[in-house]
């Protein structure tokens, strides 16, 4: 149990996917202009990330490993992810137009979110079991969501700031992200071993 809690803290704070591990940066930069959109993306990612972390664990454990096809990992995982995403999108679109309004435009973007494939690959690398994979995926997603929403909050403020012309837009956003990751350096060493 405490093992799982440790994984959670570690993925959310210490080894934050976005700010420390550099995964999932494109949506982090791309859809963080407003808190609302960031929240939508965060929700969508949390769902897909957890689900695909589990699915790819299953694929690895019950398909690739028994057949000795580890070298097909990347292909299989990305296929699984793409299908999970596509399927989620179609289902949400049909069953809940309201939810689709919130999440719709973000879902396709998730396929190409490094964090999703990254989690799947890291699960294998760290030899996580089923539950650990689920928690790892969830933790990564929560960490992603957390910094994404906070980042959106800051960006909304910075959008109204008197930023030098050359830095307006993505330049200052990146510098803001840099300072955020500077702050996250404070968590380094929090989890020993």
């Amino acid at each position, binding site marked *: 149990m405490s093992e799982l809690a440790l994984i959670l803290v570690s993925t959310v704070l210490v080894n934050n996917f976005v700010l420390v591990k550099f995964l999932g940066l494109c949506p982090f930069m791309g859809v963080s*202009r407003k808190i609302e959109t960031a929240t939508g993306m965060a929700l969508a990612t949390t769902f897909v990330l957890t689900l695909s972390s589990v699915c790819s664990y299953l694929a690895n454990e019950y398909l690739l490993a028994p057949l000795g096809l580890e070298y097909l990992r990347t292909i299989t995982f990305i296929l699984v992810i793409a*299908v999970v995403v*596509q399927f989620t999108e179609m289902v949400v679109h049909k069953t809940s137009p309201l939810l689709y309004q919130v999440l719709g435009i973000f879902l396709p973007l998730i396929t190409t979110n490094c964090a999703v494939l990254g989690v799947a690959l890291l699960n294998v690398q760290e030899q996580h079991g089923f539950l650990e994979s689920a928690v790892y995926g969830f933790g990564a997603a929560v960490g992603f969501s957390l910094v994404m929403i906070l980042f959106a909050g800051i960006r909304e403020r910075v959008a109204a700031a*008197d930023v030098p012309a050359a830095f307006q837009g*993505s330049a200052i956003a990146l510098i803001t992200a840099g300072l955020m990751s500077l702050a996250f350096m404070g968590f380094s060493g929090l989890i020993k071993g």
Partner: protein
Amino acid sequence: MLTAILALGTLAALFGLLLGYSAIRFRVEGDPIVDQIDNLLPQTQCGQCGFPGCRPYAEAIAGGEADINQCPPGGDSGIQALAELLGVDPKPLNAEHGEHTEARVAVIDEQTCIGCTLCIQACPVDAILGAAKQMHTVIARECTGCDLCVAPCPVDCIEMVPVERALATWKWPYPQGEHRPIADTGS
């Protein structure tokens, strides 16, 4: 090698089945985004964006065929609103499509008007009253200031004049001084 091909092939086929089936099962028509975009456009219907009216432009934006900075009547605030809706960076108005001017209405010089009805045919919102060979007038409240009636008039009797500011519609100015508007802060 064969196992590899077989394994992945089967998996892919299964997924294909799933997706193909759901594409039919969960089919949805329509695209609400067009309405949302259309709602943000000024409805001047002037065609300066390069599309015959606001809605076609909205459809083009939704389809990814047009950029968000092509509507001069909407001006920077319109672009800003579109950018927010679509989650992209706002950009300056594309000068190719014209410049943002303040609101105007058409006024027909009733002395000169020959009642040719050409302007009526041009007006996208039927804001011009009159019948053939009779003097025409613009219903100022309904005129969008699109300019389209000016060119067709054979006797050049239509003029675009700025909308008058009355006490009731007066706007407080943006405070001056240190606090310059974001748009024109220098480097």
